[in-house]
């Protein structure tokens, strides 16, 4: 599905996006590489011509599109008909019956972006959009501030698109995430600090270097890619919306863009209107949004992260206030869980559904469990839980908590003895036993 690189300069007549608009004060801006309102510093968001979309987009036109996020191209802020398509999106929506039974739910689905292409996290969605737009805006070097997954994705898709790439990460990331970036040959800056410090540094670099930072000056375009997680769920549920979604919260952007995606599908008539409840998941060691929600605040006080869930460890979340607002107005919740619960969440999803997620996914599953136990998710609700990353990247997190193989001699009787004892002993007790 790879497309040839093409550059377009003028806004094509087929383009459905119209401007960048400040979410706070409504000031409008040209469709350039800029992300902040000059008047109030509010975030800029892409606006669309929804009447044009209503007239031109149908369920059939979407279904006739590619098996990737680009089947929703009219809802994404790019002009080209040949976007960078590396097969991103259209990940499985798995009906999770065993997990549902374990938790006491009746209709639970997992949106499994642990197998998103090409780098096994939802970030491939936002990066595919950001780099397509970066090319349209004439950038030759792309960059990002990342907790790991974004660096993987930016480096991989930049390699595919032939763009130069320099990524910034906290120096203490999991080995798999560092290796999974270096392999694509970008320049990797491992910053001695936490993500928020990396982010601040990148804002200063973006001021001076003229690079396309996917989550800074390209952020209005980049973040729109997350809407596809809303579109796909609606389409995969048979063109209807779920009752309740549970998603991880880092910056809060993913959460608010899934919401925007659902609202847009309602607006253009692709699905029937429905009140979907939005619940968010944070790790206790970095839960500024959950704290604001709990305390009824409309501002988010930054924190210094200390959790194994590094991919969502953003202490100063840019879209935190919007996430709080959405959870409140949809009658949802924002909860946090501790590191031990996160590991249990990873194991629970693996053991019941055969899906190995990273710490962010463990956080989301643990919060799902907590919300069900607290009666905050009705068993009758059709609930979709978003799993956004792959466990093979954060193996350190579960090492030591999942037992060891039973080491045996290459003899039948050794196997038989081991099997018999494995039935009678708890698996943990077997860890150190040489049969």
């Amino acid at each position, binding site marked *: 599905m790879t497309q040839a690189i093409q550059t377009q300069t003028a806004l094509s007549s087929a383009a459905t996006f119209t401007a960048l608009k400040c979410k*706070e004060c409504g000031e409008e801006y040209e469709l350039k590489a*800029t*992300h*902040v*309102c*000059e*008047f*109030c*510093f*509010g*975030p800029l968001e892409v606006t669309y011509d929804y009447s044009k979309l209503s007239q031109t987009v149908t369920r059939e036109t979407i279904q006739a599109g590619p098996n990737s996020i680009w089947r929703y191209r009219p809802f994404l802020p790019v002009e080209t008909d040949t976007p960078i398509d590396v097969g991103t999106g259209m990940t499985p929506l798995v009906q999770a019956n065993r997990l549902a039974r374990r938790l006491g739910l009746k209709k639970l689905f997992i949106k499994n972006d642990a197998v998103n292409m090409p780098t096994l996290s939802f970030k491939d969605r936002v990066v595919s959009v950001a780099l397509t737009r970066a090319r349209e805006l004439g950038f030759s070097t792309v960059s990002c*501030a990342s907790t790991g997954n974004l660096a993987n994705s930016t480096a991989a898709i930049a390699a595919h698109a032939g763009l130069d790439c320099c990524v910034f990460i906290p120096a203490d990331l999991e080995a798999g995430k560092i290796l999974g970036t270096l392999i694509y040959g970008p320049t990797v800056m491992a910053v001695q*600090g936490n*993500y*928020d*410090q990396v*982010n*601040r540094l*990148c*804002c*200063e670099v*973006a*001021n*001076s270097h003229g690079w396309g*930072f996917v*989550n*800074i000056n390209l*952020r209005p375009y980049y*973040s729109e890619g997350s809407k596809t997680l809303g579109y796909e769920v609606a389409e995969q549920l048979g063109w209807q919306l779920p009752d309740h979604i549970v998603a991880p919260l*880092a*910056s*809060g*952007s*993913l959460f608010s863009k899934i919401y925007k995606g659902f609202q847009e599908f309602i607006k253009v008539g692709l699905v029937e209107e429905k009140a979907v409840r939005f619940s968010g998941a944070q790790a206790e060691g970095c839960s500024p949004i959950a704290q604001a929600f709990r305390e009824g605040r409309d*501002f988010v*006080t*930054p924190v*210094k992260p200390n959790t194994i869930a590094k991919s969502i460890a*953003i202490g*100063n*979340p*840019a*879209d935190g*206030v919007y996430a709080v607002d959405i959870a409140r107005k949809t009658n949802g919740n924002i909860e946090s869980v501790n590191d031990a619960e996160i590991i249990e969440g990873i194991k629970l999803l693996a053991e019941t559904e055969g899906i190995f997620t990273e710490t962010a996914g463990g956080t989301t599953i643990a919060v799902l469990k907590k919300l069900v136990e607290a009666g905050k998710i009705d068993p009758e609700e059709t609930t979709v839980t978003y799993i956004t990353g792959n466990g093979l990247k954060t193996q350190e997190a579960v090492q030591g908590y999942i037992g060891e193989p039973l080491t045996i001699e290459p003899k039948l009787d050794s196997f038989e003895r081991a099997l018999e004892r494995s039935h009678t002993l708890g698996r943990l007790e077997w860890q150190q036993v040489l049969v």
Partner: protein
Amino acid sequence: MAVKVLIPTPLQKFTKDQAAIECDGGTITELLDSLEQNFPGIKARLCDDQGELRRFVNFYVNSEDIRFLDGKQTSLSEGDEVSIVPAVAGG
């Protein structure tokens, strides 16, 4: 008390495109007034009508967020670096 102030792109039209300037102030509050004197109009972009910092503006003193220090009362020393950074980034 001269400190170095890093100016983000959206405000550089006030500073004649300078990304870094020298300015005086013993605290962030004083620095804001000093910035306004030197670059009229800049304070209204950083503060709301009540004079509070806008919620999408972050101030850092020597790389530390002032919300982990004393907020607008954070004191400044000769040679400190104050960075003004839009909050909307990352994630």
